[in-house]
């Protein structure tokens, strides 16, 4: 754990909901001296101390210039696009690959860098036949979805950069993140009036609240995390149970009709990417017991509580028009 004040932290992906949350928590940390963020979108929260640069992930030269000029002690890499969250699968893969190359490449040029913390996901364990029900961090990654491959690549690149320049690298493997403003394909699907589920399997899955995920990143940066850690909410819920909790109409599906359902759901504004389909067919659990040992914090909201919060959000916050002044 660091006890040196005045540390310089760089947060890639600061414009996203998770990035903004992490930045706002870091602003209150006494050991953080200066904070810099880069993203394609501006931050979603009011930040008092952070310096923000709006740069496209493909603009590698500018990213490298900003990162090397700032020369961070810790890089928190959150510039990860989940497929069908803010961009389609192909774009998400491209943006994530560009950002990974630019930020982690730039980090390699920073002489003061001591630690890299990257966002990863439990999707990298994959859900092949005979894969473990609750994999822990020691299980070899075997992704079976595009998003799983994306986060696996981020970890691989970060490890290779860290090995070359001799710094610690930690990967925070998150369960699907749900929160009031977090763009999540799983959350969007579950909030539809009618939600499909696999009647033949209806497997359990876990999620994590956005605040808990943000706390995990702050703790990882403070402790100089040097290995992967699963961050998952305690408890589990099945697709049908989540639908019943939200008072939605469960639509039982067997198999072939999933292809039609995915297209229809896309038309209604809730696309079902590969990794979300995997959640509904094969489940997604992970062993998060090492979080307390490695990070000193553990998610406080259980999976059923996070699901309840998902259904408690207002769909549309109406802003009434101010009456027009008459001359």
């Amino acid at each position, binding site marked *: 754990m660091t006890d040196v004040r005045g540390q310089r932290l760089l947060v890639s992906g600061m414009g996203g909901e998770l990035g903004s949350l992490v930045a706002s928590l870091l602003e209150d940390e006494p050991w953080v001296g200066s904070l810099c963020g880069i993203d394609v979108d501006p931050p979603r929260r009011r930040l008092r101390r952070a310096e923000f640069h709006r740069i496209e992930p493909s603009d590698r030269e500018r990213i490298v210039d900003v990162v090397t000029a700032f020369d961070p002690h810790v890089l928190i890499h959150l510039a990860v696009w989940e497929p069908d969250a803010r961009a389609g699968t192909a774009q998400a893969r491209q943006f994530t690959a560009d950002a990974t190359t630019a930020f982690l490449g730039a980090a390699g040029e920073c002489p003061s860098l001591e630690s890299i913390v990257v966002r990863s996901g439990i999707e990298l364990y994959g859900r092949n*036949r*005979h*894969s*473990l*029900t*609750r994999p*822990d961090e020691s*299980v070899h990654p075997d992704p079976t979805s595009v998003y799983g491959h994306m986060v696996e690549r981020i970890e691989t690149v970060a490890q290779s950069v860290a090995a070359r320049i001799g710094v610690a690298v930690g990967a925070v493997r998150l369960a699907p993140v749900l929160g009031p403003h977090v763009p999540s394909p799983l959350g969007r699907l579950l909030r539809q*009036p*009618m939600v499909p589920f*696999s009647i*033949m*399997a*209806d*497997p*359990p899955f*876990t999620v994590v609240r956005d605040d808990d995920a943000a706390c995990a990143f702050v703790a990882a940066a403070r402790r100089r995390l040097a290995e992967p850690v699963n961050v998952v909410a*305690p*408890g*589990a*819920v*099945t697709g*049908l*149970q*989540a639908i*019943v*909790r939200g*008072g*939605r*109409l*469960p639509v039982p599906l067997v198999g072939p009709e999933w292809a039609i359902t995915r297209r229809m759901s896309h038309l209604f504004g809730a696309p079902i990417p590969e990794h979300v389909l995997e959640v509904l*067919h094969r*489940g997604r*659990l992970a*062993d998060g*017991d090492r979080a307390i040992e490695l990070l000193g914090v553990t998610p406080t909201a259980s999976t*059923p509580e996070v699901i309840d919060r998902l259904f408690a959000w207002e*769909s549309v916050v109406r802003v009434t028009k101010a009456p027009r002044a008459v001359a």
Partner: protein
Amino acid sequence: MADLIQLPRRAAVGTISAVTAPLRPLLPPNSVDEWGRDDHLVRLIQPFARLRWDVSIGGLQHLPARKGALLITNERRLSFSPLYVAWALSKATDRPVRFVGRPDHAPFGAALRRVGALLDNPTEVHGALRHGEIVVMGTATTNHPRYAGVVDHELVGAAVTAGVSVVPVASMSTLLSRAARAEIGAPVRLRTKRRGPLAEIEIAEIAQRHLQKMLDELGGVQTGMAPIDWLGEG
């Protein structure tokens, strides 16, 4: 400027919620645990399971109160002894007891997971034992109800590395009667402490010998009708 068309989403959700309300007690929204076992479902089907197996249990004092343990039970072909031993012990101890051996395909694998089954994988078993779970595994199946089959030493290795005790459980049931018996023995201990993989091999062998001894002590099936008892012998 274009008008925004509002779909009657709230009304739709309200109607659906009212329609599904009577079904909700049957589908409790929070009954599945972190390994996928559905306690509510297990409690629902236990009365039906009792129509097939009326299990009497002995030796409960040998089970750890809080820690995990690997229970090894003998298995005659098609007796499903890990299943009924796990359910009976779960009811007796009021703890979720899991059993090893689910296929990983729907719908059977998914259904068995809901009633407490784990994959037949040492890493999966190790994870459960490390978290203080009680796990029942079967020996290799035999054709005779009073023969203990070979014990898989790789699964025993999961218990050794997790640092939990290995406990033999002699089980006895017949195809023609509801009566079943599960007798829990004392935890298996090695006379010589082993640091390497010999530990699990020797524990597996000793567990099989203990099981055989317990089965011999239990005797055969005694229904009071000699032909049925003879059939029950396999």
